[in-house]
């Protein structure tokens, strides 16, 4: 019953999307604006139908309806309800359902907010959204159908993959990732809509989707950070980024959309880069589909890629279709894409954005090539290879360091004009802070050039970006006699996009500091300890108290109690464990982390004697790692500030603002 409801809702949604996608262009061509309501109705109906299907699947999971193939594949009666619900995105088919649902939600919302706009941009964007939805419905009816009947109905199932039910962050990372990935379909649809409607000369498609793009970017950023956090808390190797294809798949479109967020400002202010921005958005969308293909088709085997099947060909076909269609559309609009402005001064904000885009694009190609190379090598030369971390580090460290530097210079440079005498005053606080951090790093023992440069430029960027807040607020204090906090709040409130951007920059600096410190100063100690014995790591003394075993409903747990000792007193305890799931021979290591402002103590249980007489434990001192997670929150806060509606400006308030340019 549930199965039929869920499946038929998708079949009807497929038909509705198809009809809408055919009908929309006809209505526009005939100039029948009164018909557009049917196009929009298709978008809303699609949302309702996919919602019904998604809820039915969740109900099937929760009620352990093993007659549904997806439930039989990932469900189990012993799994706690929370992990049962989130197993919606634990395997291929369910995650496609979830994707289709998020897309339907975005499409319905963006069409609703823009339905009254004149012109053909919105109808064509709605059509594009329906075509993308159609692709996912085809997947759900064809190769990724989660609603196949199972007979005879099994009494119980295997449960979700142990790695995915071992940590609460698995409930956070995938939805954030999909909200980010799928959200990028909105600006893509408007870019295509602008090309179809011949409205590429203006920047309406950018302005109408600005908040949607920042929202999607914020979700994608949060997803990447949450993924790092998950990897750190669950995988037990004490790191958070391994240049794994799955991580790269989420990072590659992040690079292009981050480039886009900056380059659109050049188009809005100076009327340049119109062609570039269209291509950047089409490219970003293709990279999200490519990322889904890489992670979900099982083509690259890694922790996340559990599935295999024919679905890969559907993805490749869709990517080819999008690329060919985009090529024709760009070519058809090329006469309208001339620049209005030109680069006037080499030392201006525009130049900084151009360089930033160049570096981000280079970065994107580097990661993309490194990720795809093993596939090409296997297909062409028949050898199994992997591209190691050294390649990615060697290629990306110079880029990251240069980007940190640009992030410091860019906000200090004025638009259009060459830099004046004022520039020095804006750069000096940053330069001073950078020098202090770099010297501190060298004193602490950093010898790697990139590491020292990272501290130098991170401090520089922090100083300049924070300095912008100080300058703006102090100008307000001087002009209006406001209190400092009020002045700061009004400053940000009056120009949310600009200062939201600077907040995000500060978040990036915090992440960069965490990454630089933890990769430069990490120390680890592995020891086999009897109860009462201690090991010391980076000045922290840790004592092994006892090993223990425990039965939990869905798993068995073996753990070790570790005590952090300071001056003879136990100040904290940690319990690294191994979780045994009945479906897996391999125990899932479950490290425990004790966080301080200066860093994390990371405990991982490596091995134990069955009689409990000793355990082998790895203790890692991870300096500044909590700053990465905090920086992630700051980045998201920046996105939120940038998305919130602009406060109405009172006519008198504006001119006194420092810096002048928005």
């Amino acid at each position, binding site marked *: 019953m549930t199965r039929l409801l869920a499946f038929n809702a998708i079949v009807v949604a497929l038909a509705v999307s198809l009809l809408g996608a055919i009908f929309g262009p006809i209505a526009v061509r005939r100039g029948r604006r009164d018909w557009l309501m049917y196009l929009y109705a298709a978008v809303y109906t699609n949302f309702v139908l996919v919602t019904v299907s998604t809820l039915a699947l969740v109900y099937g999971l929760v009620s352990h309806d093993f007659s549904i193939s997806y439930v039989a594949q990932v469900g189990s009666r012993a799994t706690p309800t929370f992990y049962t619900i989130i197993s919606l995105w634990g395997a291929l088919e369910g995650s496609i359902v979830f994707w289709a649902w998020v897309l339907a939600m975005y499409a319905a919302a963006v069409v609703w907010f823009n339905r009254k706009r004149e012109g053909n941009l919105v109808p064509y964007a709605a059509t594009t959204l329906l075509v993308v939805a159609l692709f996912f419905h085809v997947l759900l009816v064809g190769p990724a159908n989660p609603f196949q009947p199972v007979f005879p109905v099994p009494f119980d199932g*295997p449960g979700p*993959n142990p790695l995915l039910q071992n940590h609460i962050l698995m409930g956070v990372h995938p939805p954030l990732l999909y909200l980010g990935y799928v959200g990028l379909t909105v600006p893509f649809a408007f870019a295509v809509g602008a090309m179809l409607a011949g409205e590429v000369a203006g920047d309406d498609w950018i302005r109408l989707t600005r908040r949607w793009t920042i929202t999607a970017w914020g979700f994608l950023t949060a997803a990447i950070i949450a993924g790092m956090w998950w990897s750190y808390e669950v995988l037990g190797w004490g790191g958070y980024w391994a240049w794994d294809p799955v991580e790269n798949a989420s990072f590659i479109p992040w690079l292009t959309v981050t480039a886009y967020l900056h380059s659109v400002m050049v188009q809005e202010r100076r009327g340049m880069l119109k062609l570039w921005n269209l291509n950047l958005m089409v490219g970003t969308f293709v990279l999200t589909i490519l990322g889904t293909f890489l992670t979900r088709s099982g083509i690259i085997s890694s922790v996340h890629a*559990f599935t295999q099947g024919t679905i890969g060909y559907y993805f490749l076909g869709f990517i080819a279709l999008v690329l060919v269609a985009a090529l024709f559309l760009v070519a058809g609009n090329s006469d309208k894409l001339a620049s209005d402005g030109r680069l006037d001064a080499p030392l201006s904000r525009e130049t900084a954005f151009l360089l930033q885009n*160049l570096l981000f694009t*280079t970065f994107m*190609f*580097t990661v993309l*090539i*490194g990720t795809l*190379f093993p596939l090409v*090598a296997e297909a062409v030369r028949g*050898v*199994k*290879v*992997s*591209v*190691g971390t*050294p*390649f990615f580090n*060697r*290629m990306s460290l110079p880029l990251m360091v240069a980007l940190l530097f640009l992030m410091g210079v860019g906000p200090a440079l004025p638009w259009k004009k060459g830099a004046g005498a004022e520039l020095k005053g804006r750069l000096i606080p940053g330069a001073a802070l950078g020098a202090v951090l770099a010297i501190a790093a060298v004193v602490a023992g950093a010898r790697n050039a990139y590491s020292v440069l990272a501290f130098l430029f991170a401090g520089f960027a922090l100083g300049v970006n924070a300095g912008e807040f100080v300058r703006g607020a102090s100008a307000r204090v001087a002009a209006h006699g406001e209190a400092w906090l009020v002045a700061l709040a009004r400053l940000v409130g009056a120009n949310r996009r600009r200062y939201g951007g600077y907040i995000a920059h500060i978040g990036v600096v915090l992440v960069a500091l965490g990454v630089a410190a933890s990769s430069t100063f990490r120390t680890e100690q*592995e*020891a*086999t300890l009897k109860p009462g014995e201690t090991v010391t790591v980076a000045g922290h003394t840790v004592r092994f108290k*006892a*090993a*223990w*075993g425990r*039965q939990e409903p869905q798993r*068995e*747990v*073996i753990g070790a109690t570790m005590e952090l000792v300071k001056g003879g007193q136990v100040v904290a305890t940690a319990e690294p464990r*191994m979780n*045994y799931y*009945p*479906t*897996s*021979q*391999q*125990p899932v290591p479950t490290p425990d982390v004790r966080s301080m402002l200066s860093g994390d103590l990371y405990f991982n249980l*490596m*091995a*134990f004697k*069955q*009689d*409990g*007489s*000793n355990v*082998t434990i*790895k203790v890692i001192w991870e300096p500044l790692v909590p700053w990465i997670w905090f920086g992630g929150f700051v980045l998201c806060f920046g996105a939120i500030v940038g998305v919130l509606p602009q406060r109405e400006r009172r006519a008198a308030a504006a001119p006194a603002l420092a810096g002048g340019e928005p």
Partner: protein
Amino acid sequence: MTTKRTKWGALAAVGVLVIAFGWLIYGGLDSNVVYFLTPKELLAKGAEGYDKPVRLGGQVKPGSVVWDEKALDLRFAVTDGTGEISVHSKGAPPQMFKDGQGVVVEGRYGRDGVFTSTSLMVKHSNEYKAPTKGERPSEMYKSLMKSAGT
């Protein structure tokens, strides 16, 4: 005329950048690609196989494991039935490490004929399989419970 010249100049600059980028990528890939090899394949490479990043896959040769618990020093041999390579690794092996187990070690094959491993992974399929008798987690767990008296 000037605009035309600027255009060519820009194209040339882009060309130079792309070539430089390609060269860097090529160099980076050439020296950092890690090959998946079995002992037989690695031995067949002869002198070319020394001191290159390799992922070596095979089984732990039964009876070859020497584990020093205090020094956290592990030596064993990886075999694929034909070839055999001795491996040296630091740190505790994964809990499932045992004779006959499929493993993947990452590291470099030294001229002294010993493969120095930087990472040791137990190979296991992602397919669900019922554990065989004797390696059921519950049995290990019970024996630990008994001895710990909890």
